[in-house]
């Protein structure tokens, strides 16, 4: 059956991407100059204000190597690394010693995931909705206004968009905080409100950033789909514009948009990292930047691996729900 083949292909591609990504993550930092253990030891020595004996240094070196999975030759290290990735055990963090990396990631991950899921979904829905109307009614003046939104938003670099939004909404109008302060403690109604309030600006910039492209490409797709014989025949059937726009044009034109979304997931994640840094948002991006700045290898490994894992998984999930929208794949040719 065709569907089974499709699923097997996607799952296979998923594991292949994970494997390649994780392997590159292992080798890339090893090409960088500097030795993390030496770094750490010199930090300890600087803090202690005295030099340690050679034996003490060697002892420290050995235990650190064990802790960070750096004993043995490259191949042994690689195998050990893979084993730890499978268990999602990245050892302790360097900067927050002895807190395990996995726990730090567990804390920051939901922030990023929550922000990204909401904004991606919103910008896809709103962007495609506007693009659909602009394309379906492309002969009308109002449609040109809608398209204009896309044309204006699309080419603006993300950081400029973010700065403009901050400038207007936070700095001039003072509607939102410049940097977020989240209520601590367990989940409560107030906490939810504070999260929504504080996340509004970063979310808004992400929606606006994703939006322009969706408007423009959906508009082009809708214009082309509108001329397809089945839409023309539906018109001759006497169906209403609403029926044609939604059931005939959108349901077909959204298929390439889902595929495009899958392909752009990596970039969306990229955008989120910038957002978190610009807005001091406590997600994975901030963690990753802190880790890179402090030379915290384990934390860096962990956050990169988690990133690869989540982007690939999101893509897989989209790929797997795609057949729900396209009967030609669901039911075979």
């Amino acid at each position, binding site marked *: 059956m065709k569907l089974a083949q499709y699923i097997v292909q996607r799952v296979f591609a998923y594991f292949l991407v994970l494997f390649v990504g994780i392997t590159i993550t292992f080798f890339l930092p090893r090409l960088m100059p500097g030795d993390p253990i030496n770094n750490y030891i010199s930090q300890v020595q600087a803090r202690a204000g005295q030099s340690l004996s050679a034996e003490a240094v060697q002892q420290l070196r050995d235990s650190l190597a064990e802790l960070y999975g750096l004993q043995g030759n490259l191949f042994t290290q690689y195998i050990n690394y893979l084993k730890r990735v499978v268990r999602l055990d990245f050892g302790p963090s360097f900067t927050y010693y002895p807190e395990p990396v996995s726990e730090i990631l567990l804390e920051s991950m939901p922030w990023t995931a929550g922000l990204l899921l909401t904004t991606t979904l919103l910008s896809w829905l709103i962007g495609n909705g506007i693009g659909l109307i602009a394309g379906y009614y492309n002969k009308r003046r109002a449609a040109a206004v809608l398209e204009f939104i896309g044309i204006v938003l699309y080419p603006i670099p993300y950081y400029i968009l973010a700065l403009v939004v901050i400038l207007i909404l936070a700095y001039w109008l003072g509607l939102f905080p410049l940097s977020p302060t989240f209520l601590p403690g367990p989940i409560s109604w107030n906490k939810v409100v504070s999260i929504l309030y504080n996340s509004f600006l970063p979310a808004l910039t992400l929606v606006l950033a994703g939006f322009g492209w969706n408007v423009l490409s959906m508009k082009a797709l809708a214009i082309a789909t509108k001329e397809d*014989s089945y839409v023309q025949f539906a018109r001759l059937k*006497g169906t*209403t514009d609403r029926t044609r726009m939604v*059931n005939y044009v959108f349901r*077909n034109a959204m298929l390439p948009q889902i595929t495009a979304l899958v392909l752009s997931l990596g970039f969306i994640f990229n955008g989120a990292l910038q957002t978190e840094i610009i807005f001091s948002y406590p997600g994975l991006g901030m963690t990753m930047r802190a880790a890179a700045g402090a030379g915290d290898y384990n934390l860096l490994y962990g956050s990169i691996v988690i990133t690869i894992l989540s982007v690939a998984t999101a893509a897989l999930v989209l790929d797997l729900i795609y057949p729900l929208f396209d009967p030609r794949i669901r*039911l075979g040719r």
Partner: protein
Amino acid sequence: MIRLENIVATYTTHRGQVHAVEGVNLEIPDSTIVGIAGESGCGKSTLMKVLYGDIGFPLSLSSGKVDYGFVNDRGEPVTTENIRDEWFRRISYIPQSSMSSLNPVMRIRDQFVDFPATAGRKKEVLAQVRSFVQKLGLPPQAIDAYPHQLSGGMRQRIMVAMATFFQPEVILADEPTTALDVVVQKSILLLLLDLQKEMGNTILLVSHDMGVHYQITRKMLIMYAAKVVEYADTDDLFQQPLHPYTLMLIHSLPTIGDDRARHGLPGSPPSLWEMPQGCRFAPRCPLATARCRREEPPLKEHVRGRFSACHYANSVPELKKTLEAGPKLSEINVMELMAEAERDI
């Protein structure tokens, strides 16, 4: 009876306006299958659009209207003005390509009940559709499928089912079977013929295939360069055409058991942008005289019920005999034929 009154259909393009159907006056009796033939670009599809009332940019009606000869629910006569309200109720349309006329992501049953005519009674209609498609040689579950799950022939049967389900007075079919293989083509046309016999609709069928016209239609309409050049009962028209263009169309039809070389149609029709003066067919016509190049022949009833737009309609039988004798069109002694033609007048 459908009455077409001086129809002029015009396309507005960046080069200016062009008449794709010009001055068509016709009466089509009820419950008749009318075949429409002519080379591509002669305006067949445009005439179908006008008949369907699908008039909108870039197509406009510069003059004339169609009177359909029946009244709507409010008792008003149905004409070009209000025919749109009758789409798939009193008039329906079978598109050219069944392959691509159905929405690939919707089940066929859902596409069967999104007509305005079915609003509010989808369940009831679907039950009727299920038994109706069985009559058309389809399994009732066929309507639960998506288009890609059916063969080309089955899909075209679905299109025929849609066009006939509401029992419209008029069915328009613009090359409804061109994308299908010959055997399937034939079964679809015979199906349409059966349904027509039962329901008594008027069908207008555009086809390139003169053989199909001969088998299926009762009347024939021959078009050339935006004009109707001949309109007559199919039997008469095939037996004795009264326009040289019709004769040449029929003559280019291969018949089984006849291995004489067929004459294709030499030359090509004039561009709509540069119409010759006089008869539009004159540059390709073996009968053409100076008069033809000067004076445009009107569509006239030469014999009762037989309309032709040719100054020398009476000489066409002679031309036919000559053609049937076998010589190539280029070898025909035009002078002789013309002399005969002059004598006939």
